[in-house]
């Protein structure tokens, strides 16, 4: 009774005006919030995950990865790898139109690859296209791509290549400042609504000419940095408003939706894992016993459970779902006594709180990216655990841009926490080869180098797999990083959305199939 009275009162107060004004079309909009704001919708410069997701809806690539993990038709209807694995030939879909009505042809594919390789086009993932030697159009609907060296499963490398229109740019030198970044033209299932790119939201509408017509009419992304606001929006999502999905649910909030009658938890597998990196330029950390001791002192399961929810503890640089995972490597358990013993044996004697050897101290600078929300909490846990074996840590929090510079470029850190995410190919060569471009820890192990070099040269996928398994075991021993875990990530999706399937890494791959019931 009381409820009804209050409800009536609220209505009488006019707080709920305009409920009749919403049109039926608005119900067909799929709303979702993002933690970060995509600054660019130009595929090359789509570096944030939020931008990657938007780009997926607007642009198309030649091939996709389907539900079974197989490569499936996209803009290309068929493809054939050359016999020597030195190139690939695509046959393109006919009758595809760009969002502005221009026809899509092989020239666009050629342009996209040329643009990616143009030295004046500067973007982070540029090295991903280094394997391509040349690209040629064969008629209107044929493209041949030649590689620098034989590539196994080459078609997988084209999943992430979003095709951009040749007529959209004056030349292959593409700048971040290009207007295209805010007024993109793609061939994808959705196109930018008129005036859809605004300060903090992006609105898309269905592309009526798309070959795989989407079932949802409109999509709107809104930058909502506050996670609690996102959760609120999903939690209270009603018939007329609210959001239909929260891309990443913080683990603490998963319980909230576990038995919800309006929201489903949808696992969102990413090929990514967490690690704590040791700077091998630090003399103490260059010693293997120190790294091992640190590993033995940290309780990964406790940290994982306390801060991130569910996931798998890692034994090496591959996740359990990876073909390269070596099941023979055993998970190490926490063993403070052994850790202390290892350090004692290596000559690290406790002086007060800290262990020392000569002038060297087991006291490390722990550099962290402010943007990674769970960093703070994880650091606190690690700091507390390491203290027990006489290792002290000092936190340095820096913003994202500074972090990249300090850790990856200038290598000024002792310890840091981070995540590696892989797209279609789990290639760890850049991370652990002494000459690898992403070997920011300064790791140098001759055995590892040999193994990686031979693996790279091989054309046989089976042999490659074996060698990766070997590498797994080797790195589990030597611990260049302390491998932490891979997470079970959950999206919260409204039950009004049906036919949901979330691809690893590419969130919106199957989005055209999704349906939204009113």
């Amino acid at each position, binding site marked *: 009774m009381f409820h009804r009275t209050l409800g009536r009162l609220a209505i009488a107060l006019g707080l709920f005006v305009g409920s009749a004004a919403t049109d039926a079309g608005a119900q067909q909009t799929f709303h979702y919030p993002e933690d970060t704001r995509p600054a660019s919708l130009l595929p090359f410069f789509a570096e944030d995950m939020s931008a990657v997701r938007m780009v997926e809806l607007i642009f198309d690539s030649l091939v996709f990865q389907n539900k079974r993990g197989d490569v499936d038709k996209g803009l290309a209807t068929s493809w054939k790898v050359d016999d020597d694995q030195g190139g690939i030939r695509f046959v393109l879909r006919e009758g595809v139109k760009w969002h502005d009505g221009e026809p899509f042809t092989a020239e666009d594919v050629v342009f996209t690859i040329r643009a990616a390789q143009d030295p004046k086009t500067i973007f982070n993932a540029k090295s991903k296209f280094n394997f391509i030697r040349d690209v040629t159009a064969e008629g209107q609907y044929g493209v041949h791509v030649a590689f620098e060296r034989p590539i196994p499963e080459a078609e997988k490398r084209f999943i992430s290549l979003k095709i951009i229109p040749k007529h959209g740019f004056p030349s292959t030198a593409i700048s971040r400042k290009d207007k295209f970044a805010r007024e993109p033209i793609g061939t994808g299932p959705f196109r930018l609504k008129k005036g859809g790119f605004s300060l903090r939201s992006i609105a898309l509408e269905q592309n009526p000419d798309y070959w795989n017509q989407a079932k949802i009419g409109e999509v709107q992304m809104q930058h909502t940095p506050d996670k*609690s606001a996102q959760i609120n929006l999903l939690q209270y999502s009603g018939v007329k408003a609210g959001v239909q999905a929260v891309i990443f649910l913080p683990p603490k909030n998963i319980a909230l939706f576990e038995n919800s009658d309006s929201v489903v938890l949808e696992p969102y597998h990413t090929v990514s894992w967490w690690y704590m990196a040791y700077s091998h330029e630090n003399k103490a950390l260059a010693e293997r016993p120190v790294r091992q001791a640190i590993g033995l002192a940290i309780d990964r399961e406790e940290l994982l459970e306390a801060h991130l929810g569910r996931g798998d503890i890692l034994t090496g640089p591959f996740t359990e779902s990876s073909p390269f995972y070596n099941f023979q490597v055993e998970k190490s358990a926490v063993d403070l006594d052994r850790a202390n013993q290892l350090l004692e044996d290596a000559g690290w004697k406790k002086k007060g709180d800290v262990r020392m050897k000569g002038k060297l101290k087991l006291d490390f600078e722990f550099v962290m990216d402010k943007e990674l929300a769970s960093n703070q909490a994880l650091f*606190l846990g690690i700091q507390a655990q390491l203290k027990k074996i006489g290792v002290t840590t000092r936190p340095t929090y820096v913003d994202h841009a500074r972090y990249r510079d300090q850790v990856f470029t200038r290598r000024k850190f002792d310890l840091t926490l981070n995540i590696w995410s892989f797209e279609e190919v789990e290639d760890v060569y850049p991370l652990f080869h002494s000459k690898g471009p992403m070997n920011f820890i300064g790791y140098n192990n001759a055995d590892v180098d040999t193994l990686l070099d031979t693996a790279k040269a091989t054309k046989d996928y089976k042999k490659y797999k074996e060698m990766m398994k070997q590498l797994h075991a080797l790195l589990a021993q030597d611990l260049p990083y302390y491998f932490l875990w891979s997470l079970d990530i959950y999206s919260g999706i409204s039950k009004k959305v049906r036919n949901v399937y979330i691809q690893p890494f590419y969130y919106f791959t199957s989005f055209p199939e999704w349906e939204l019931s009113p």
Partner: protein
Amino acid sequence: MGRFSRIGLWLSGAIVLVVVLLGVVAPFIPYEPADAVSYDRVLEVPSVSHVLGTDEQGRDIAMRLVKGTEAFFLPGLMAAGIAVLVGALAGAVAGYATGPVRAVIVGALQLLDTLPRLVFIILVCTIRNPSVTLIAFVAGVLFIPTVAAVIRRKVEALGSEDYILAHIAHGFHSVWVILYHILWLQCWPIMVRQAAYVFGYVLFVETGLSYLGDYGVQEPDPSWGNMVAQVRSLPPDAPWPWLVPAAAIVLTISGFLAFGNLAARRGEEAIR
């Protein structure tokens, strides 16, 4: 002064006293952020051993609340000091001086007054490495004109009063008369009110910026601002880790404002 005002003065005075005590004592309480973490008591509801419950790291909220006063106490005092001392002097000079001195000071004050405070603080935080001390310093400087305006009005009003003129006529130096008879004896209620206001503003900015822009105190060091910022990751059914500091912020700010106002009112009544 009515009965309710007197009660309000006592209540707000108690809040101020508690905050000041905590601010003075907090630096001497041993607290090692690393030792406070404990995963077997995460997000516990308030109990006897943890009066205000524990947060996501299993840290005692009451302890962090107490240690968190460190983050704003000294910066707040500094800001209040800058604003009130410099503001009072500038206001007195602007109210008493003539000619170019007055013009320069009035112009400078007006200039500072046109800067939007929070926006300017954000600008400074973008350019320099932000710390609460820096924020408080800028806030203190930006409040100088506010204090100066009130003091100036008072000095102008008193400057023509007979007893002040009498003092000057009796041979006291006008600087002494301004400093002692006007600023010290007559303007202290104004200064108390403004100091309390600036102090509250520093707490407001520290917490606001910690919440929005990570410009405040960094974890693991506790501050009320970064405690409230936990609202972003906490589940809705465990609100106390941010609710407690939020309540503390509201209580402290309103307490300081009320105390400043009521104490000043009482002082003004006493002077009259």
